[in-house]
């Protein structure tokens, strides 16, 4: 365990950025999001949650897959270069790090997605324990410990100091790189903070949310056919905000961009909440917003767990709770079913 005075954080970031690309939560025009660090950025490690999750760093909102050129009747294809430099994402929270484990189950299973895999291999995660979990947080419901995030290095903000604990080989390597800025520390204050975080989490309003009836043992068709969906979905505006701020949503589209000198085929985030998501020449298999709304939650709480040994495709970050313009969210779904006797 090491520590560094907060006054020296800028020096720390500068030292990390010397050898790696560095992403940190920054306040840009009033919104805090992960962004490439430079000395001009307004780093904000106090705001608990960035607006968008940091999944962007591994599964970008938009990325080119390959380029195509036509020469008469002939075509040529040039794959986009994969991530080949190490990069550091600093300040990821426990929920967002677990979000990557969910994405791994999608992109790292056969056939492996090369683009995502390259970023996972080169990405170094410095996670930050949540000293002040907020009202909308419910990560503990999914077995996530906000006081002890996963990651390559785990850091804790305590008073004027930041405590630094490397937990993986990648983390050790990064620690060596910045060793001159760190001093030895004992764990007493960190242990005290962990206890305090756990205590706050236990008092959060959604911390005792029950997942009974969901997950891999859920009776899929009973849940699917429940009349509760018909009541629940009504206010949904189909804006898709929940999917765009979500650390685990992974639906994507593949599209073409005409550069004037060829075509870039790119993929970008998409949303199962949109009416044309499943639209095709012979029709649409989800024509109503109720069906689309149900799909999102059934996928997170039943389909995904059934395909992945019970792992839920929700990490309780609470972003959808905060950002949904009409206050519909996964917590409401879980509670409505709880009230309805989980049917």
């Amino acid at each position, binding site marked *: 365990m090491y520590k560094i005075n907060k006054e020296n954080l800028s020096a720390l970031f500068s030292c990390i950025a010397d050898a790696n690309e560095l992403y940190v939560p920054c306040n840009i025009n009033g919104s805090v999001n992960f962004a490439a660090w430079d000395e001009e950025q307004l780093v904000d490690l106090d705001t608990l949650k960035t607006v968008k999750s940091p999944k962007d760093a591994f599964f970008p909102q938009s990325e080119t897959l390959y380029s195509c050129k036509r020469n008469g*009747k002939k075509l040529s*294809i*040039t794959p986009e270069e994969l991530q080949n430099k190490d990069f550091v994402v600093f300040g990821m929270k426990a929920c967002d790090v677990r979000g990557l484990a969910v994405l791994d189950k999608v992109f790292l299973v056969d*056939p492996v997605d*090369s683009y995502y895999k390259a970023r996972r291999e080169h990405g170094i995660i410095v996670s930050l324990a949540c000293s002040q979990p907020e009202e909308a947080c419910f990560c503990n419901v999914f077995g996530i410990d906000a006081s002890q995030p996963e990651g390559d290095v785990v850091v804790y903000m305590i008073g004027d100091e930041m405590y630094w604990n490397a937990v993986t080989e990648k983390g050790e390597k990064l620690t060596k790189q910045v060793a001159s800025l760190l001093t030895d520390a004992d764990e007493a204050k960190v242990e005290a903070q962990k206890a305090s975080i756990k205590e706050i989490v236990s008092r959060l309003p959604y911390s005792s949310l029950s997942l009974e009836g969901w997950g891999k043992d859920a009776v899929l068709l009973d849940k699917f056919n429940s009349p509760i969906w018909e009541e629940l979905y009504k206010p949904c505006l189909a804006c898709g905000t929940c999917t765009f701020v979500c650390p685990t949503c992974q639906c994507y589209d593949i599209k073409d961009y*005409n550069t004037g000198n*060829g*075509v870039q085929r790119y993929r970008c985030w998409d949303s199962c909440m949109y009416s044309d998501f499943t639209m095709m*020449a012979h029709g649409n298999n989800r024509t109503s917003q109720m069906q689309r709304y149900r799909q999102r939650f059934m996928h997170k709480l039943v*389909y995904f767990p059934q395909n992945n040994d019970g792992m839920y495709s929700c990490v309780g970050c609470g972003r959808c709770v905060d950002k949904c313009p009409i206050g519909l969210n996964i917590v409401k779904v879980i509670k409505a079913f709880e009230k309805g006797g989980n049917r």
Partner: protein
Amino acid sequence: MSECTCNHDSFYEDTLIPKVGVVTDIRQETPDVKTFRVVAPDGSKLFEHMPGQCAMVSVPGVGEAMFSITSSPTNKEFQEFSIKKCGVLTDYLHAMEVGEEITVRGPYGNNFPVETELKGKNLLFIAGGIGLAPLRSVINYVLDNRENYGTVDILYGSRSADDLVQLKEIQEVWMKAPNVNVYLTIDREQEGWDGHVGFVPSYLKEIGFDTNKVALICGPPIMIKFVLQGLQEMGFDKKQIITTLELRMKCGVGKCGRCNIGSKYVCKDGPVFHCDELDEIPAEY
């Protein structure tokens, strides 16, 4: 990807990166269906597949979509796609000339169980319109390995005589093959047509098949619905009936989320399903 023309140092393979394919033959099957023959630029076959599998066909700058591979794997020279003109990409494909290059990636999905469950069985194929495309792959596979299967009955219908896909092959190959019965029907009376007139499900009832068969059905959803009812009335169990699903797809490998129904991804876990399996997933198809 032996034919890749990229000059990339760190070349890698990813299932999302297609191969270049050359269209070497285009056959006008019906007023709105053409069959495209595709090979690699060096003339070799693009890949090996099994009957029922699909591939992503694309024209860069126009679009990319999933099509079933209609040629049989027993064909060692090329792959074929029978494609109906019904959207932006298919409009472009229909306007294409022989020699033009497109991109193809795949094969994707599961296949009809030709080497396991169907071996030694009597087979009943029921198709409507362009629904013949995936079944044609199985039919030719079965005819090329005739000794491995029992009787073959093929019931195929379309809107009109002009809309019957692969009519030449049906008449010259399938109708002449040993132990194969072909039943054709069209929806409405038409001059010059002396065959059966009526919808596929009603013709099915008129013929009446023994239940000592496995039925493979493919066609418009409304046809599948009534054929399924008809077969069950004849005593077929849902386990004996195999069909294919078709949903919007982008990736082809169960990641982009579009073809997800219940815990299945049609691109990866399908497109071939036994009808009893369909009872276990939400009816969102």
